[in-house]
Every structure is written in C-alpha cells, then in structure tokens.
C-alpha cells in the first residue's frame, strides 16, 4: 500500500504571514523581514490569498472545505526554521475527504485525498562553506499546501499516475507552478506491504529525498522488493524513515521511530481561526478553470483529436492553452498536436524547459506549419528550423532565410540536379528499370543529399519518374 504526501508552494505574490516576496532565487536573505525571520516580538498575519488558493486546490480535488479551521504550531529545532516552530495545521485542516481519478491499464481508479492543509515553508541550508553551513531564509514563510493521500495506491505505476494527475490539476488551478527542480513541488511517500488476501496493515516505511516522479516510482519499486525480501526471509519490517539514494538506486535508513520528533502541536495563539463562508467558497468555485478531463473531452469533440492526443495535450494547462492559440492561427489541429507531442516535447525533455520558458509562441509554430503547407520548406527541414527557433526564439521565416533552407521547387533547377544523379548512378537506374522499386528510394535520397534536403519531395518524385521513363 502506498500513500503520498505532496508539498506544493503556492503562487501567491507574498509570503504566508508577511509581505515579503515569494520569488524564487534572489541573493540569500534578501527576501526577508522581521516577521519571516521570527525576530522577538513579531507576529504572523495570515495572507488571505493563501486560504483562497488552498480552497481552490481543495475544490479542484473534490474536497470538503472546512467552514472553521485553525492554525497550529509544530515545534522542532532546525537551523532553517527561524521560530523553531512551523505554523501549520494539525487537527482541523482546511480541506479534507477529496479524491482524484487516475487511469491505469485503461481502468479508472479513485485515489482518496485525506486532507490538504496550509503551512509555512522553512529556509534552506547552504553547505558550500567548509567551516560550517549557511542559512538562506528567502524561502522561510513561502506558503505551502500539504496534500495527504489515502494509502489507496497499490503499485509504483499508480503512484506515478497519481502524481502526474495531481500536478496537472494544481497547474490548471494555477495555485502552484509545481517545479520540482525549484522545490516548489516535493514528494514524500509511505509504503507498506502485506501478503495477498491479508487485510491487516503492514508496517509503513516513509521515503524521503525523492526529486522527480520517476524517482518516486523507482524508489517505491526498490522498497517494495526490499520489504518483500525481508518478510520472505522471515524478518520483520521496522517502522522508520529511509532516504532514496538516486545514484546507487537504493533506499537507506535515515531515522527510526524512536528518533522521530514529538512535535508538541498546539493551537497557534497568535492567529485567529480561519472562517470560510459558503459565499466565499462558491465564489472560488465559480472562478475555477476547466479541469483536465473536461478539457480532454472537449478537445476530442471540438478539434477531432484522437483520445491519446487529447490526453497528452491536456495533461498540462499551458500545453493545452498553447495548442488552442496555435489552432486559432493554423486550422489543422492534428498537425499542431503532432508537433506538440513530437518535436516540441522532445526538445522540452532534452532541455528540461517548461512550455512557458520556451521562446516559441503559438503564432510562431503556426507560421512554421504554414511554411510547410506553402511548399517553402519540407517537413524534414521544418524540424531543423524548429530546433533553431526553440534555441533562439527567431521567427521561422528568418531562420529559413538566414540558413538558406528554402525548398528547391524550381522545376528546371531540380531537373538539372536529377539528371546529374541519374548519370552518376547507372546501376540503380538499371535496377529500377528491372522492376526494383527500392532503387527509386535510393535515387530520391541521392537527390536530397545533393540538395542538402531542400528538394521539394513531390516534385523530385515526379521529375525522377519522368526522367527514368525517358
């Protein structure tokens, strides 16, 4: 059984209890004030936007929103925690009892969401100094939601699907940018095994240091195997926290239950209870955008996309928005979807960039596709052009011009080249005339080679056939 705890940083402008910026980066300890540094005498004041964003997430994840909830203190010592307690929520979280639906092997499965609560982030330790560590408190007080799932997942694949879906919903509702590399999305997981048919819960192990969804999946796969092996050898699982070692591909012990903190939770006396009225809740509900599964259905109906394409394109709101803007300019949805799922996604994966970090706009992609349709460039040249656009942000026609990639569509020019190719390849011409169709492909290839791929494919075929039948 697998349960996940996901921490997501909220996209509010200012921190949860003061007006400092939440922007990522910045010189260490420049996004701080007496409040988020926890100086003696300072008091927190709850940012209303944080509640609003958390309620948005809660509604999008089908949760019950508490009319009355409160903040609590979670006490523990660590240098990155300025007050030596984290203001969080304990027994009365803002959202509870939700779910998300995932698809595994074509079947829909509901994964329960136990609770979502709001809390403040801690600072960051910098270990670059050899004499000791330094602390950067820029992140201290950045608002977080912690989303705790029910232990409803039974395979690492389901955990992966759950995370993908969760990320997509959080992005859709625009409450978090979910960038794992910047730490705005962090995942811990609990896993236990039990014999088939048993209803008794196994001892759970908590896994930490999971830096990507793939890492979650791999760590779970490893950990399940490890636990099964321990039990099969007659051993027992000891409740503990283990960390995923990415380079070794194993989980290692971190701390045992005995070493676990007693957080001494108690109600935060510096803050008043959080009241969410029904009116406010409805207002937030009305402001929710179209959710991924609705968008997917609409894309199938409205643009005639195959289900597979629609699912991929709508998995990210930014991708879906890009798609729709592009289709407005270039009315061939399937071609746009092919490009987004193909070249576009390939380069994003290679560079680790998000769609909004890529300099290519929907209008630019539409222009590129029009250049193919108009015969200015071929489909294969278009890939070269796109790669240049992706790297530099240049308009497609500029790239074509600068690199001299215009298609050779001049019949006389092309005929001269083809004649030369025929003259230089008597063997292949012979083979073709003897009925070997393959030889035709070779000759086309030679033409492309001679023109550096710029020959118009249809015209090349046509002229080649004419010249060969002479």
């Amino acid at each position: 059984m697998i349960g996940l705890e996901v921490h997501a940083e909220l996209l509010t402008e200012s921190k949860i209890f003061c007006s400092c910026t939440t922007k990522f980066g910045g010189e260490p300890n420049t996004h701080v004030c007496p409040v988020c540094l926890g100086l003696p005498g300072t008091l927190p004041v709850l940012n209303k936007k944080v509640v609003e964003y958390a309620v948005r997430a809660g509604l999008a994840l089908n949760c019950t929103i508490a009319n009355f909830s409160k903040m609590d203190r979670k006490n523990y010592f660590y240098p990155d925690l300025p007050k030596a307690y984290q203001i969080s929520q304990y027994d009365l979280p803002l959202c509870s009892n939700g779910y998300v639906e995932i698809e595994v092997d074509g079947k829909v499965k509901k994964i329960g969401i136990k609770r979502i609560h709001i809390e403040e982030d801690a600072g960051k330790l910098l270990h670059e100094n050899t004499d000791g560590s330094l602390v950067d408190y820029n992140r201290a007080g950045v608002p977080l939601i912690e989303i705790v799932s029910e232990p409803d997942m039974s395979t690492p694949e389901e955990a992966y699907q759950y995370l993908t879906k969760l990320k997509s919903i959080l992005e859709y509702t625009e409450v978090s940018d979910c960038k794992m590399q910047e730490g705005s999305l962090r995942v811990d997981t609990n896993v236990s095994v039990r014999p088939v048919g048993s209803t008794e819960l196994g001892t759970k192990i908590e896994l930490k240091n999971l830096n990507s969804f793939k890492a979650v999946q791999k760590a779970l796969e490893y950990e399940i195997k490890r636990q099964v092996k321990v039990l099969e050898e007659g051993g027992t699982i000891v409740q503990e926290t283990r960390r995923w070692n990415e380079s070794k591909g194993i989980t290692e012990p971190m701390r045992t239950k005995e070493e676990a903190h007693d957080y001494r939770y108690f109600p935060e006396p510096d803050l008043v209870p959080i009241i969410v009225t029904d009116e406010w809740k409805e207002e937030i509900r009305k402001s929710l955008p179209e959710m991924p599964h609705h968008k997917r259905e609409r894309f199938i109906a409205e643009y005639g996309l195959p289900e597979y394409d629609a699912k991929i394109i709508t998995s990210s709101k930014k991708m879906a928005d890009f798609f729709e803007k592009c289709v407005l300019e270039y009315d061939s949805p399937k071609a746009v979807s092919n490009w987004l799922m193909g070249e576009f996604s390939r380069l994003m994966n290679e560079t680790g960039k998000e769609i909004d970090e890529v300099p290519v706009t929907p209008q630019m992609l539409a222009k590129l596709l029009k250049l193919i349709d108009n015969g200015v460039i071929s489909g294969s040249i278009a890939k070269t052009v796109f790669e240049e656009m992706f790297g530099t942000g240049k308009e497609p026609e500029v790239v074509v011009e600068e690199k001299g990639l215009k298609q050779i569509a001049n019949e006389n020019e092309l005929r001269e080249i083809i004649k030369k190719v025929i003259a230089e390849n008597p063997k292949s011409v012979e083979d073709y005339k003897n009925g070997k169709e393959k030889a035709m492909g070779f000759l086309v290839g030679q033409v492309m080679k001679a023109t550096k791929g710029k020959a118009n494919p249809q015209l090349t075929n046509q002229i080649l056939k004419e010249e060969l039948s002479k």
Partner: protein
Amino acid sequence: MELYSLTIHELRELLKKREVSALEVTKSYLERIKEVEPKIDALVTITEDFALQKAKEADEKIKKGEDTALTGIPVIIKDNISTEGIKTTCSSKMLENYIPPYNATVVEKLLEEGVIILGKSNLDEFAMGSSTENSAFKTTKNPWDLSRVPGGSSGGSAAAIAADEAAFALGSDTGGSIRQPASLCGVVGMKPTYGLVSRYGLVAFASSLDQIGPFTKDVTDCAIVLNTIIGHDPKDSTSLKIDKPDYTSYLKEDIKGLRIGVAKEFFGEGIEEGVKETVQESIKVLQNLGAEIIDISIPYVEYALPAYYIIASAEASSNLARYDGIRYGHIAEKYEDLIDMYMVTRSEGFGKEVKRRIMLGTYALSSGYYDAYYKKALKVRTLIKNDFEKAFEKCDVIIGPTSPTVAFKIGERANDPLAMYLADIYTVSVNIAGLPGISIPCGLSDGLPVGLQIIGRHFEEGKILNVAYAFEQANKFNAKPQAIGVQDNEVRSSDWLRGPCRTFDREQNLL
C-alpha cells in the same frame, strides 16, 4: 516642586502654556534618574542622547502647535518591548546585546505623539517572575523599602514611576506583571482587555495572555496613556477592531448605583491581615460614595493558578524556542555539533526560572501528556471565563486586593517558586479570562503600599476608570516612598498609619 514629581496632566498644562519646555522636563527626569538609580536599579538602559534629541523635536512640535496630550512627556519602556536601535534585552543573557531593527506598535504610537523615551526598565527574565529578582542583570529595589522587591515582572517600570524616574511607564502583564508591581510600589497600573493594545513588538512570553499596559502616577494619567496606545493593529491578528473611546470622559466622581462585586475567593488563605483590612476599608469608601456592594463568587478561580502555569509555560516553551544561537543573541563558544550547540547556548543563555518554565511547558505539551495537562488547563480556562460572565450578570465591576501581601523581602521567596507563584493568585484569573484590570494604591500597611484591584467586563476599561477615579478623588493617596531620600526604618514607625483614609500632603513628604 520638582518637575519630575508631576503627573502627565500637570506637565501637559505647563508645556501647553510654555511655562516649561520638553527639554527642561526631560533634563529634570534625567537628573532624577542619575540621583536615584544607584539605589533603585530600575533601568537596564538609559537613552540620554536619544531623549534629549526627542525633547528638542517635541519642543518644535509644541512651537508649531502640533502637540498632543503626550508630546514632550517622558516615558520608560519595559525591556521586553521592541525599540528600534535600542537594546531590548528582556533582562536575559540570551538577548544581552540584541538591538531590534523595528519598533513595537505601541512604541511607534508613542513616538508619533512626541513622547520622550528615557530608557528601558528591568524585568524578571522574559517577564517570568513576581519580584524582578529573575533579571540576569540586576535586582530592582522597592522605593518604599530598599530591602524589599518591587514586585514583577514589570518591577523596573513600577519602581521607576514610584521613584519619579519618568512620568509614566509601559509594562506587560501575563499573569499580573503590571498590577502586582503597581500594587507593591504604590502606583497605578492597568492591564487592558486582551486584544485592546497591539502586542506587535512585545517579546512573547505567553501569547494568549500577554498584554501591554501603562504605569502612571494617577488614574487620570492612566486614561490619557490608554487613549494613545489602544487600537486595532493590522500587524496583530488578535488585536480587535473597536471604536476608540475617549477614556478621560470616564473620569467622573459619580458612582451612585454602580454595582460592585466582592468575591470571597479574593480574601482567602494567605492574605495578610493588613492588606485585607485596607481593602475592606476601601470597599467602605466606595459604598459611602453610593456604590452598591454585592457578594459574588468565582468558584473555579482556585484552579486559575495551576491552569495559568500550564498554559503560560506551554506557550513559553514554544515562544522561547527561537533563541537557538543561530540568528541573533547568545551563542555558545564551544560545542561539538548542532544539538550540542543548542544545548550549551540555551543552558548558558537562560536563567533558572526560564528553564523551569520551558521544561514545564514542554512536558505539558508532550505526546501522552497533552490531554492531561494542556487540554485540561484550557477547559479550566473556559470554566473561569464562564464564572466571570456569570458574576458580571450581578455586578458592573469586581474589586479585591491586587496582591495578598505587601512587598516582601528580597531573597525571601527567591528559592521557593511556589511561594513566588502565589504572589499572582489574585491577578492570573483576569489574564485567563482576558479581562481588563487595574491596580490603584488604596493605603499603606506597615508603611508599605496596598493595591486595590478593579476588574471589569471585556472592553469596559471606562467603567474601571470611573470607579478608580471616584475612589482616588475620595481617598487621595499622596504618600510618597521614603526609602530613597530618608532612612526607611524611622519612617516606617507609627507615623505611617494604616488605612486608606489617612492622607498625606505631598509637601510633608518631599524627598
């Protein structure tokens, strides 16, 4: 008549008429401080240059006609209230050299009016104590008898006002820390309703109980200071939005028909006979003024002290966790690793009483003990609130002694925490219930001041001030502490009579 012996409203008259300047007033107080501080030890920091500069600015303000009720009036601030650029030590080794980069909201409000900060006053470390003996720096003496404590934790502020070191002072009251020292030093001290005065900048001891309030020489001054320091603060979520009343409008002598509750629980075991008699005579004074005296009961008040020590210590254990040596304050010189650094830093930085309360609070919040201690204490808190609510159905204010005893000897209770905790037996329930309470001097017992506590409903400071003012007018407390200028043993003989109705002319007792 020296300037330093005047009240705020008396000084105000002189300043307004330009008979004196703020600079003269300030200098008079600075002189006074130099004269009496060696005996009293009320102050941790004296801000002479800052005060002189502010005095000049105040005179400018007055010249331009931009002055208000507190312009040019000198104040002393308890050293757990944050002052920008001025050390705020909480009388702890932990914060010995800590200089805050910001002002508490109350300080900001005072500075805007042109108040002159003369210095920061001594307290029991982090406001934990009832005698000011828990200060890491010095023991403040009671101006009435230098061998006795001034009370605590705001003992420095109370002693400073009793010794005329400032026109008024600010303190903080978590379980009686304004009222009890006011009582022991013979001055007026008020703890306002929880949420009336912003706590922003008050170094937290127990967040759900702490409240800032004034020490003054009379009830009128108390109303004047209250007018300035109250009000909603967007930086403090627990400060309430209420219409700001003019508290001076409540300063009336008429209390005819007002129902005054007297709870038998406030005259129980441990009360000194002299205190009891003085307070009972004070009740008669109020009765003679036309108030109706009603017997009431607050049965759960006997659990107030234990509940208080659980709630306050629990919150303190969390509030004081931030003093870990990482960002500011004391840090251990030698340590082996992170945990060791925490332990050495905190062992060295905190005094005995602070450590005791951190341990108490940590224990009360620990898993497995939370229900038995903290949760139960919160239930008691609700019961006490209900008790007061019921009592206030029958009366408008409740009166009784502020402290069961007069000032005790330095060292007498220093090694007996339980005896020390009993000093707050009549004051803690007011914090537990979040109510406003005042202590005003009502007479002397064995030559030492006795305080009368008047408790009101939430946000009914006005009614408290009305009763306090009526009493004060009928029963002028003009006695002045003798210990600073005169040999105390002589004065405390039969010349000093017990009882509230004995009054003394100020001139007779000039220091």
